């Protein structure tokens, strides 16, 4: 620990490091080596936190971060910049479960494990009085390790939305196995492969009390309630391995470019097509997956599925979605979508892609322009050949009360703050 503090002190230079014993870890404030548009400034406000997944900012500026794996036996971090000098010197931790989802809403902190969602009452200082006794709001959700992250979002009408990712690539009888046919209908969709809606304040809910709000979504790690149009938006991790499983239909290049990662607006009852369909960004349509008789062109039932609002390159792994509601960025950013792409692995043997944060301008809930890379260089490499080489991978997004954008990284546990300086 001492070593880590020393290293961060070295990294931080004179930039306002205040490390003290006890709760405090190596929190500091220093320039970040990532590329952001002109007029913006990126700094690192915390580092070496562990596998920092999603992040939530409370109205008073306190940050909560969910760790995928426990660090020192704890899975939730609370960061506070008590003296308001840009360095989050006060770090406390609690929660004995790993996971991904975290949100602050109506005086509560919500956090998810891979099979449950808990909440904690917050006081006016955004402190959790009894960290040992969370209220279990939802329990017993499917967790078969694959796609088990339970990302969450809340609307303004007392609903909690939970992603239940499909523990499968394309619902084959034998997952990811060459020659194994698709299951039609796919039984996984009964308990996963979609977004479930629950009450935000009823304890001990599970499938019976909840409602399958949207289906046909393989795995959604990034989702956000858009208060501008009052709808849920999600980004899906598309299927893998077209060339490995169907070399007669797809070559390596096609497999690296297919299928698109999709951004949807999902209304109650939406079916986005997984596992039967995937979106081909070049043909600009949903086509039937080869496990279900597809040949890369046939549409069949896929014409009836909910179509994406934005199609991104394949396999980039969108891990967070955030609609920017602040007024501290230039006007074109208002109500637009930021997406944190964790970065690909399934483009091999071609170079990997992603490892950046993207912006999509929106007007009234519809894209109002092309997507663009907003923050890049997290991997620390000019080209990522293997994901294991990436130094940082964007995973979570939050909007701080001061209008800046916060980005978490789950490799080293770095937290970036991107502000507009004009």
């Amino acid at each position, binding site marked *: 620990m001492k070593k880590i503090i020393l290293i961060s002190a070295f990294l931080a230079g004179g930039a306002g490091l205040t490390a003290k014993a006890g709760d405090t870890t190596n929190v500091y404030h220093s320039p970040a080596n990532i590329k952001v548009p002109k007029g913006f400034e990126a700094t690192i406000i915390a580092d070496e936190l562990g596998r920092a997944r999603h992040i939530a900012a409370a109205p008073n500026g306190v940050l909560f971060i969910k760790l*995928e794996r426990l660090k020192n036996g704890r899975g939730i971090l609370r960061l506070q910049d008590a003296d308001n000098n840009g360095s989050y010197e006060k770090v406390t931790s609690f929660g004995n479960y790993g996971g991904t989802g975290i949100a602050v809403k109506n005086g509560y902190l919500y956090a998810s494990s891979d099979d449950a969602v808990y909440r904690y009452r917050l006081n006016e200082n955004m402190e959790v009085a009894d960290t040992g006794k969370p209220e279990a709001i939802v329990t017993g959700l499917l967790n078969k*390790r*694959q*796609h*088990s992250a339970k990302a969450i979002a809340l609307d303004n009408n007392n609903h909690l939305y939970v992603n239940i990712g499909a523990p499968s690539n394309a619902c084959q009888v*034998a*997952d*990811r*196995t*060459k*020659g194994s046919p698709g299951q039609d209908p796919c039984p996984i969709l009964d308990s996963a492969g979609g977004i479930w809606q629950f009450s935000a304040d009823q304890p001990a809910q599970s499938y019976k009390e909840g409602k399958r709000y949207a289906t046909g979504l393989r795995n959604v790690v990034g989702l956000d309630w858009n208060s501008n149009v009052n709808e849920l938006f999600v980004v899906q991790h598309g299927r*893998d*391995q077209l*060339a*490995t499983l169907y*070399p007669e239909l797809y070559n390596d290049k096609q*497999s690296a470019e297919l299928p698109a990662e999709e951004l949807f607006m999902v209304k109650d009852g939406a079916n986005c097509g997984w596992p039967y369909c995937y979106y081909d960004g070049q043909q600009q349509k949903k086509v039937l997956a080869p496990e279900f008789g597809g040949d890369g062109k046939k549409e069949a039932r896929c014409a009836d599925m909910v179509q994406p609002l934005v199609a991104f390159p394949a396999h980039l792994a969108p891990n967070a979605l955030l609609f920017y509601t602040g007024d501290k960025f230039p006007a074109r950013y208002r109500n637009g979508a930021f997406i944190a792409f964790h970065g690909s*692995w*399934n483009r*091999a*043997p071609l170079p990997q892609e992603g490892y950046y944060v993207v912006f999509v301008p929106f007007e009234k809930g519809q894209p109002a322009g092309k997507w663009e890379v907003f923050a890049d260089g997290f991997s620390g490499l000019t080209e990522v*050949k*293997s*994901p*294991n*080489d990436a130094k940082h991978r964007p995973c979570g997004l939050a909007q701080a009360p001061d209008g800046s954008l916060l980005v978490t990284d789950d*490799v080293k546990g770095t937290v970036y703050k991107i502000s507009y300086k004009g």
Partner: protein
Amino acid sequence: MYKIIAGAAVLLALAFTARQPLPKGSLERGKKVYATNCLACHQADGSGVPNLNPTLAKTPQVTGDRQKLINIILKGLDEEIEINGESFSNPMPSQAHLSDQEIADVLTYVRNSFGNKGTAVSAAMVTTERKKM
């Protein structure tokens, strides 16, 4: 003196690791099988994908017991495993569609790539394990 000890250590290490040469062409053939069936998940350098697909470099499951390793290829693996303190969430599919020779070659390849040094796997060993399925 130091030099002599170091030299002796190198010789000793060489003698220790000297083993049967690998079957002719097995690495080249294995590399091709790897590219088609394994590379997408385990990556060209065998480093895998953090949290999803295990690394094959200096992994006890890869460099250790050959019988167990053959069975992972034949049957796949969908259970919680820990490798060097890391865990992985994607299932390994069965590769039983490969021939015994292809499995032997690809295992010989991964046991002797990515910094690994291991004994060869023969088609006969794969045949024996497949019969037990």
